[in-house]
Each structure stands twice: as C-alpha cells, then as structure tokens.
C-alpha cells in the first residue's frame, strides 16, 4: 500500500473532468423537473448527443461544431418526449424510459460507421500564467473549455431560477400548473422549452464523454451516466448549486476508489466499486432527514391538460 502515490491535486483535477458530463446532464434535468416534468430519458438523450457530437466533430474537424450539434440532437430527441407527454399526454415515467431505449438503439445505428475513429481534440483553454500557479493552477486553470462552460451553465441556471422573472414563471409552472395557467402562462409551451433545454444539456454531457473524456465512439458508452445525473438532481434537492456538489462528490468517489485500488489499499475491490453509490445514498439520507416536507416541485410528473 502506498497512499503517498495519490496526488490530491491531480485527484481533484481529474474529478472535475469526471464530473463534467454529469453536471451538464443534471443541470438540464433540474430545469426540466423545476417545470414539473420528470424526464427519465436522460441516458437516451446523452447517448444521442454523444454520437451526434462525435459524428459532426469527426466530419467537420471542429469539436465546437460537434458540441453544438450534440445539443441540437439531444434537444430533438427531447422534443419527441415533449410531444408525447405535453401534447399527447402520455405518462412521463414510461415515456422517459422508452426514450432511453430508443436513444440507445438509434445512436448505435448512427454510430456504426464511426467505430474506432479518434475525434479532433477539444482544446485546453489557455489561461497563460494562471495555469502555472502551484496547486490552484492545476486544479482550476488547466482544463478544456467545456469544464468551464459547465460551471458557467450551473451559475446561469442558478441565477435564472433565483433572480429572473422567467425563472419565477418556470418554478410557478412546476409548483402549480393550474394556477400558472389561470394567470395566463402557457404551461405547455414553457414546459416544452424546459424539456428542450434539458435535452440540449444532456446532449452536451454525452458529447463530453465521446469527445473529451474517453474520447471515442462505442455503443452504449454513456454506461449509466444519465441515471446518475437523475440521481444527482434529487440528491441536490432541486438546487443548482448542490448539483455541483453532488456531481463532484460522486465523481470524486469514483476517481478516488480507482486511485485507492491503484495504490494497493487493502479494501475489497467490490466494496470500493459500490462505494460511490452507497456513499451517495448515505449522504442523501443525512441531507433529507430532519427536514420536513419534500422539496420536489409539487407538480413533478403530473399531467397537465388545460380544460378551458
């Protein structure tokens, strides 16, 4: 056993990368759920984004274009969910699961000709002397631009929900759609926008996996990240800042357990592999216990049909 081999600076730097796809997908899903819609199809939208982004980046040579198309791809798939749940009033849980099944299938179909290819590299943001700072430089100022984009997105969503009128309306729709409707807000339209945003974010998260974190295309490569993102939203009790916390905690334990293994810590491997999930549950229980009531948006998963 050689714990000194673990460099905490590098550990933190890599957990930021590991957490980025989850942050992106989770912050999008948070907005969706804030509007009162539960979309369990995050995994399907992520994998679709992963292949759309990968394909476009490979064809065009531009990762930026890839990410843009990944967002669009995710949003398009999300609109399918939107159409079904908002217009045709289907059950959200079932539709979300069907979306995951469909997304996994369709992405594998699209991806058949992209196997075994390396994508163009996503550039590391050049921060000049900042990157050379001891400790802080490596942790904070040495990443690719998507890491900062994800962080900025969390800040934007937080500010949007907290300070803007649009955020207030969104939350109103999620807390009581009948009342929001009575006040003249277009509940369905607002929710569709939220769903599209959620899809776009999930698409970005997926593309981050296929373009930066792995980077290559393989069938089913998101490997459950979408489900983790869903869990992180609940874990964060629907607060943007806590999404960051949750994703870093999860990403951190995932990276740490591999580091502990590599350093030869004599803890059974299966216990280490389970630890990210078990610790997430434990922290969740600690955070929810003692607090009264439920912080979930009141209309989460409920159907809305304007009868007049």
């Amino acid at each position, binding site marked *: 056993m050689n714990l000194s081999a673990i460099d905490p600076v590098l550990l933190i730097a890599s957990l930021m990368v590991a957490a980025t796809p989850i942050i992106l997908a989770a912050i999008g899903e948070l907005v969706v759920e804030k509007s009162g819609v539960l979309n*369990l199809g995050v995994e399907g939208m992520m994998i679709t984004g992963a292949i759309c982004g990968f394909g476009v980046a490979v064809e065009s040579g531009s990762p930026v274009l890839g990410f843009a198309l990944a967002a669009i791809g995710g949003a398009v798939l999300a609109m*399918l969910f939107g159409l*079904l749940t908002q217009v*045709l*009033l*289907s*059950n959200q*849980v*079932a*539709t979300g*699961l*069907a*979306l995951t*099944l*469909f*997304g*996994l*299938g*369709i*992405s*594998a*179909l699209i991806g*058949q000709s992209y196997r075994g290819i390396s994508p163009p590299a996503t550039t590391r943001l050049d921060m000049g002397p900042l990157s050379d700072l001891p400790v802080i430089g490596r942790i904070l100022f040495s990443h690719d631009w998507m890491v900062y984009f994800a962080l900025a997105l969390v800040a934007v969503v937080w500010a949007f929900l907290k300070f803007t009128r649009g955020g207030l309306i969104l939350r109103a729709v999620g807390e009581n759609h009948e009342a929001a409707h009575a006040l003249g807000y277009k509940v369905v339209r607002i929710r569709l926008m939220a769903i599209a945003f959620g899809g776009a974010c999930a698409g970005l998260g997926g593309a981050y996996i296929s373009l930066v974190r792995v980077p290559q295309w393989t*069938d089913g490569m998101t490997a*459950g990240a979408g*489900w983790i993102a*869903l*869990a992180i939203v*609940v*874990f964060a009790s629907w607060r943007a800042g806590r999404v960051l916390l949750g994703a870093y905690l999860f990403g951190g334990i995932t990276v740490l357990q591999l580091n502990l293994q590599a350093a030869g810590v004599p803890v*059974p*491997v*299966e216990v280490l*592999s*389970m630890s990210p*999930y*078990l610790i*997430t*549950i434990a922290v*969740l*229980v600690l955070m*929810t*216990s003692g*607090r009264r*009531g*439920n912080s*979930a948006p009141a209309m989460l998963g409920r159907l809305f*049909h304007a*009868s*007049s």
Partner: protein
Amino acid sequence: MRLEKRPEPSRAWMVATPVLAVILTMIAGGVMFALLGKDPFVAIRTIFWDPLFNEQFAAYSRPQLLVKAAPLILIAIGLSLGFRAGVWNIGAEGQYIIGAICGAAVGLAFYPADLFIVFPLMVLAGALGGFLWAMIPGLLRVRFGTNEILVSLLLVYVAEQLVASMALGPLRNPEGGGFPGSRNLQQYSAASNGELIAGTGMHWGVVAAFISVIFAYILLNRHLTGFHIRLAGQSPRAARFGGVNPGRLVLFCMGVSGALAGLAGMFEVSGPAGQIGIDFNVGYGFTAIIVAFLGRLHPVGILLAGLLMALTYIGGELAQFMLGLPSASIQAFQGMLLFFLLAVDMLTNFRVRIGRGAKI
C-alpha cells in the same frame, strides 16, 4: 386540433389503441428497415409472425414467449401497485438480482442433498431477498423522507457489483476450474425449476406470474388495500382523510414489488438461466416498468403487454440473424412501439376535435 377530456375512458379505444399502435410501429419500423436496406415486409413478418407461426421455429418459440414474459409480468404486476399509489420503485432490477442471489445461495447451501424442501426454501429466500432489498428505499422514505426513486435506482448498481463478486467469490462453482459463475442449478434436481410439462415452457415462474395477475386483480377490485392504493394515487390528501396510513402503504407497495421481483430472479436463476454469472441480470427490472405502463397498470393489460414485449424480443432475435439486422435496430424498433402505444393511449381518455370548438 385540440383535445377534449372524455367523461369516461372510451372502452372501444382501450381495445383499439394497442392495435393501432402496433400498426403504426410496423409502418415506421418498416421505413427504418427499408432505410437499412432490408425488405420491410420480411422484417416485420419475421418479428411478429415467425415466432408464433413459422413451422421451422414456432414449436420452440411459442413456449419461449412464456419463459421470456414471465419475469416481466411478475415484476410489472408488483410495480404497478406502487405506481398506482405514487410509490416509485425504479430499482426492481436490483431486487431481481438479490432475489436470485438469495435463492441460489440457499439452493447451493444444500447441495448435493436431494431434499424435497430445498426448492420451497429457495422460493422463500428469493422473495425475502427481494423484499428486504426493496425495504431499504421503503424504510428510508418512510423514516427519513428520502426519495425512493433515487435510492432504489442506486441500489441496482450496488446489486450488480454484488452479483459479480458473488459469481467470483462465495457462490463460485468449486468444480468450475476457477472460472466465474455458480454451479448450474439445472443439474441439481432438488433446486431446479425445470419445465413442468415438457415442451410448454411452463415453469414455476410462469405459474407464479399467472397467479400474481389474479392476485393483483382481486386485490385492486375486491380488497380494501386495493382501494387505498387507488385512492392514494388519485388524491393523497383524500386518502389521508380516508384513514390510509401513507407510511404503511409505501412499505406495502415496496415490499410486494420487491418480493415479486425477487421471486422472478429466483425462478430465473433456478430455471432458464441456471446459474449466477457475472452479468446475470439482463434488464428485466427496467423493461418491466415499461410493461407495467403499456398494460396501463391493469393486471390483465400487463399480462398482454408482457407477452407482446416478449414477442418483440424473440422475433427481434430471429430478425437479427435471419436478416442480418443490427441489434440496435431492434432496440430502436421496441422504442418506437412504446412511443406509439403511449401516444395513441391519449385517444382513450380524450376526444380529438378538429377546428376551434366554442369555448365553454
């Protein structure tokens, strides 16, 4: 175009919508298969017709429908109770795994004793294992208000790790040359869940699935608990005034769905699968959620939905190797089927009006 809520769900549409959905899926799926360069008519026939009526396969495939559908139905029945009451057990996959581990462990503990009691004990252990695994999210929700969707889902990943380490560790076949995987329970007659009547596919899991359908039907229609479940789902406030203990209802729903999922896992490991392997679970717990909704949370509907799902699996397999269709296209096809079923479901509860009706 706008929708108008029907005062009563339409019975005619309730029957017609699944048929309509299947037809729509055949059209959309046919287009997809044509784009992949395959004959769409042959592909559709292979998926829906050949498993049932092709003389080369049907004698084998038809009983296999029951084998594939049984765990789906068993799990979906349990989940549907919770879903009706607003209890979201998304982690049936984990309970299925734990049920299989517990059932197999009990069976293997008796190996090679040829006792009549072994199999009944395994059934109990399987149900108990699934029940206890489901009680974790259940109790956490009741005691701490922790979200059960999240906990039950995260526990699936834990269960997956557990089954892998079981296959490599305590349950590993000591005569297996160091390879992963338990002894094959099919070869241990006291613990084997074989076909009850040869060539029919009927094993105890299929029987249990049918019993669960009847049990759920009676519970929902004739029993006070069933009434409470429906009431809690429709109006939690009214339910509380009506004397429903929400905590107990959560535990009941989680417990029943967990036990049924555990049973499904146990019947699978002792029957069709035969052994605990590294990748024992194949997603029945998640597919069952879809089956539950396709069946509109109704016991008979779930029975039919489970069989339909099984048909697309088995027909999809045939289409893959007979026509060279990629497995991804079958996955996408199943996704389409679900989308269409969910989309046209709306016709049951709403009337479509063309043009702008007068505002009331």
